[in-house]
């Protein structure tokens, strides 16, 4: 089978810079893609076939093989440096995915099985999936929506966004925000060092919820009627609830514990430098909608401050903002986007 597949693919690469092939796969087969640079896009469909479309330079070489029950798709170069390849692959919806890249953006849509995606530089965006879902990027935003299972999402230098997810959830970054919305889970752990954490979701009886940041605000929803024991701690921030807290125990400076209902779930909310803002779910949803509407105009996130003063937004503020942050962001974004645009233009003009 391995020989047949490989042979078929080599003969099906008549167009320079483009490879297309479609083949049947056995039930239960999984997909493994390894791409040094470019893009990996995977769609789910309800057929037992895999369709591989790849765009690459003239030196690019695409290898497809079946090892055991795993379809292996690999990009390599006939000579010299690794080729930049953009994959667009369509697979059975239940197929388990293992996607790996170095300078690759990874996008998955319409899948219903386990997903593992890892890249060094590039965003990961996944919609769908169930079972074990592991998404890791060093330098890229990680986004996951409409998924269920044991979810482990990790970035280093960018933000993490999870929406409409359920199961056991862990999300961790170093330099970025973590935003979880529409969560249905009894086990949630979200942490960052330099960024804020937003949680809007259920609090299940007996569940565990741990939210932690060093330098950022914590915005956490607690639905009315929740049965939860909440421990909150901050070294230098403020506690800012939008509803009365039944504080039953105070231990040390700026540490509080309170019980709501039976207190059967446990929640820890901790930020060393930031404020801890406890809100009702609808407040967070409203504020997120408000933030999304304004996102294109203003990235300054004061949307959870209830006394937001918009008078300062204007030409003077923009000028100040640019003067303050241009120096800081230029070194960060220049290498990121220079590489991306160079790749796009190189491909466009190389033919």
């Amino acid at each position: 089978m391995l020989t047949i597949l490989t042979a078929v693919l080599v003969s099906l690469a008549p167009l320079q810079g483009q490879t297309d092939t479609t083949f049947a796969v056995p039930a239960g087969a999984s997909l493994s893609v390894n791409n040094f640079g470019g893009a990996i896009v995977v769609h789910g469909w309800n057929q037992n076939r895999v369709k591989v479309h790849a765009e690459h330079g003239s030196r690019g070489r695409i290898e497809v093989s079946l090892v055991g029950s795993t379809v292996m798709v690999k990009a390599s170069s006939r000579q010299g440096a690794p080729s930049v390849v953009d994959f667009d692959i369509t697979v059975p919806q239940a197929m388990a995915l293992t996607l790996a890249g170095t300078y690759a953006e990874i996008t998955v849509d319409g899948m219903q099985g386990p997903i593992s995606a890892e890249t060094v530089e590039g965003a990961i965006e996944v919609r769908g999936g169930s079972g074990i879902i592991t998404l890791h990027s060093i330098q890229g935003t990680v986004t996951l929506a409409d998924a269920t299972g044991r979810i482990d999402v990790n970035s280093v230098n960018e933000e993490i966004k999870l929406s409409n997810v359920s199961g056991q959830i862990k999300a961790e970054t170093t330099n970025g925000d973590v935003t979880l919305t529409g969560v249905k889970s009894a086990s949630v752990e979200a942490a960052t060092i330099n960024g804020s954490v937003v949680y809007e979701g259920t609090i299940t009886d007996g569940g565990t919820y741990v939210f932690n940041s060093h330098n950022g605000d914590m915005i956490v929803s607690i639905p009315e009627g929740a049965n939860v024991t909440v421990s909150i701690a901050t070294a230098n921030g403020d506690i800012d609830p939008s509803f009365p807290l039944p504080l039953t125990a105070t231990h040390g400076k700026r540490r509080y514990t309170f019980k709501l209902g039976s207190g059967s779930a446990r929640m820890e909310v901790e930020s060393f430098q930031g404020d801890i803002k406890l809100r009702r779910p609808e407040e967070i949803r409203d504020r997120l909608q408000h933030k999304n509407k304004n996102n294109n105009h203003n990235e300054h996130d004061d949307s959870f401050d209830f006394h937001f003063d918009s008078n300062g937004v204007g030409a003077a503020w923009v000028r100040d903002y640019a003067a303050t942050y241009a120096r800081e962001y230029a070194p960060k974004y220049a290498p990121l986007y220079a590489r991306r645009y160079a790749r796009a233009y190189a491909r466009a003009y190389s033919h």
Partner: protein
Amino acid sequence: MNDQWTDRLSEYLDGELDAQERGALEAHLSGCAECRATLAELRQVVARAKGLEDRPPKTDLWPGVAERIGSGKVVNLPAHRARRFSFSVPQLIAASIALVLLSGGGAWLAVQRWNVTDRRPTGTLAVTSASWTGHTDAAIADLQDVLTRNESRLDTATVRVVRANLAVIDRAIAEARGALAGDPSNTYLNLHLADTMRRKLELLRRINAIAAARS
């Protein structure tokens, strides 16, 4: 703080008190905010320990055990009654810090010589950063040395990002240490420092793994 009851909180949490003791402790808890807070801390410790990732041991001891079983030697063990372990609050917090660091992987050095049998005065949270960060610092330094040697295998942009993020973590560690210097027995600050150091260990381990894969 009522020392009589503080000593029994971990047994209470483990469900090891008889009905009479449990009732008396609960009556005490209803009127003692400090014991309630301590109990909440203990629950946090237990919850964190439960949440830690289950990692397989690096060395599989079973072949050695199986071999000895196969040798047919019969050893008479002295009769003993079931032992019950209970820990003081500082010991539980110490254990929690150890678990947090262990979950970072490669940090076993940090707790290798951890003295959990050291019974300190109950009621005083005697775990301080000075008592445990030394070995963790050494583990971090080792991984940082490896990274320095590995950096040439990584893209310069990646190296720059990693360095920037290590600096972010270093700042957080320094701030946590500074706060701990003024409040050394603060449970939150101890755990926060441990967790932040774990994050640094994990990042170093991950980057080193990426670099090693490119060799």
